């Protein structure tokens, strides 16, 4: 059995029953309070210089994503070029954090961002359903890492999680973490839209962090309910509590459904108010998005010129 859990919580993962006792022993989530807190933090007014800072920070946190059956090497190259220089008319625009692609596109993406600080993230483990044997999932991860992926976005086995087989989920995450080796950082996707309750999201967060996740991520973007301020706030509270208990810092990545600069800034307020400045960096917080970047760029142009910009002045993806 892999022993990736931090020493303080080592005995928790000894068996399915100890793990179960621990996860179900986590305090229940006050759903109304959580949503009210997320909504009230969303009403902050961020203007002028603070807005300029927030827009640049948000751009630098974007995982520019293309996860379509119709992805071509050409599209991935275009995405890579955009990731490195999001606004060709304004060289002060920061690069995004990473491009996120399917494993077979990693090589093309790697080539497209060569020579820059932009990372290549690859979804793996039979994304988005995660319904494949462990050996297939691990092969998926190894191939992606071998092709040069800097980050792996894995999906958890929601079936096993909902059936209460927490140890299976734990061992799977730990095995994938091992397959990532020392080079690639691991993001664990919960698909919060399929976990039904906030309590389950809190349990999944702790389970993934115990198993060695470098990042916890809300969703795949392929289901109806994706990232919401409330579930992101809940996960931020989980990483805050986890660091307080173990000293290990874990990142958070809301993904799917964040389309406007206004929304992105609301998430940054959540981060600042919940976990503080330590997480206001693209090493610890990311946005999984595709159309968000264009809106961020248009807002940035508006702030720079004082004129409202339009979709004619950003790329069509």
């Amino acid at each position: 059995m892999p022993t990736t859990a931090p020493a303080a919580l080592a005995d928790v993962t000894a068996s399915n029953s100890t793990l179960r006792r621990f996860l179900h022993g986590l305090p229940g989530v006050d759903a109304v309070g959580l949503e009210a807190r997320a909504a009230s933090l969303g009403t902050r007014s961020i203007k002028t210089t603070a807005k300029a800072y927030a827009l640049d920070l948000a751009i630098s946190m974007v995982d520019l994503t293309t996860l379509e059956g119709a992805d071509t090497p050409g599209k991935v190259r275009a995405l890579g070029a955009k990731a490195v220089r999001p606004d060709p008319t304004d060289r002060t625009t920061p690069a995004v954090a990473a491009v996120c692609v399917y494993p077979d596109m990693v090589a093309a993406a790697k080539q497209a961002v060569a020579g820059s600080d932009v990372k290549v993230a690859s979804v793996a483990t039979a994304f988005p359903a995660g319904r494949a044997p462990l050996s297939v999932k691990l092969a998926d991860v190894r191939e992606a890492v071998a092709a040069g992926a800097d980050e792996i976005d894995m999906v958890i086995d929601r079936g096993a999680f909902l059936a209460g087989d927490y140890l299976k989920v734990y061992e799977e995450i730990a095995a994938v973490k091992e397959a990532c080796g020392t080079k690639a950082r691991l993001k664990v996707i919960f698909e919060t839209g399929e976990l039904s309750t906030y309590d389950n999201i809190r349990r999944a967060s702790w389970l993934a962090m115990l198993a060695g996740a470098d990042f916890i991520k809300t969703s795949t973007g392929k289901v109806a309910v994706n990232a919401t301020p409330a579930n992101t706030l809940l996960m931020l509270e989980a990483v805050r509590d986890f660091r307080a208990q173990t000293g290990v810092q874990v990142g958070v990545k809301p993904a799917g459904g964040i389309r406007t600069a206004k929304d992105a800034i609301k998430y940054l307020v959540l981060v600042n108010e919940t976990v503080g400045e330590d997480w206001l960096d693209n090493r610890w917080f990311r946005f999984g998005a595709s159309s968000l970047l264009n809106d961020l760029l248009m807002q940035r142009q508006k702030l720079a010129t004082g004129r409202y910009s339009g979709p004619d002045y950003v790329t069509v993806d």
Partner: protein
Amino acid sequence: MSDKTEKTASRLPVFKTYKLYIGGKFPRSESGRVYEVTDSKGNWLANVPLSSRKDARDAVVAARKAFGPWSGATAYNRGQILYRVAEMLEGRREQFVREVADAEGLSRAKAAAQVDAAIDRWVWYAGWTDKIAQVVGGGNPVAGPFFNLSTPEPTGVVAVLAPQESSFLGLVSVIAPVIATGNTAVVVTSEKAPLPALSLSEVLATSDLPGGVVNILSGRTAEIAAPLAAHQDVNAIDLTGADEELARELEIAAADNLKRVLRPQPVDYFATPGTERLTAFLETKTVWHPTGALGASGSSY
């Protein structure tokens, strides 16, 4: 209005909340501001929204979203919808006669003449939707083996500053030609007399006109027009409601992304309009199609 409420004193008056019209919905101003509108003698009529530049921004987004489907609709269909607006207006004629009379200080008969002319104006432009292409487009004779065709296409999102004086007939005379050819419009109402325009939005909302094709903003013309003139996603601007100094400023701002500009000019709104306002917001697309070598007759088509 006041003597009517006195006659039915047993009943509490029900005042109308005038609202903006953006993307087919009736929001209040994002800023929460309102201003007082009075009749020509200075009696209070209503509080109407005082739009901010963010309302203008939202209206442009709505107009851009509506542009694809509206410009893609058949000219015949657009004509039907414009005619439908006339039908709906006819049913609410009395309301508009009252509002125009209050707003412009006209007698009932003169106000009725304005409203009738406005209804007829919708019918007139409804007829033009599927005819303008024949008038300004067509086949061009060229010196070469090419089939050469020109067709007019709508310019895009048009910001319209409605005339300040003619609150209804003038308003209809500037909106109808813009949307007849497939453009979408962001309309800034007359500053002093916005009520007929805000009521027109209720008519548009019930006339099969897709949401966002016409967006109506009330407020200070100079305040709303400035961000519209500088907006990079607005393709043209009609400066009818701007005074000379404002028009100059707006035209300079509009030059940045090469907007089409229609300068303010004296117009008799009762006269039958020409096609000038239709063609002001059209682009011409010309296609050259090779025909191969010309035959002995001199033509291969």
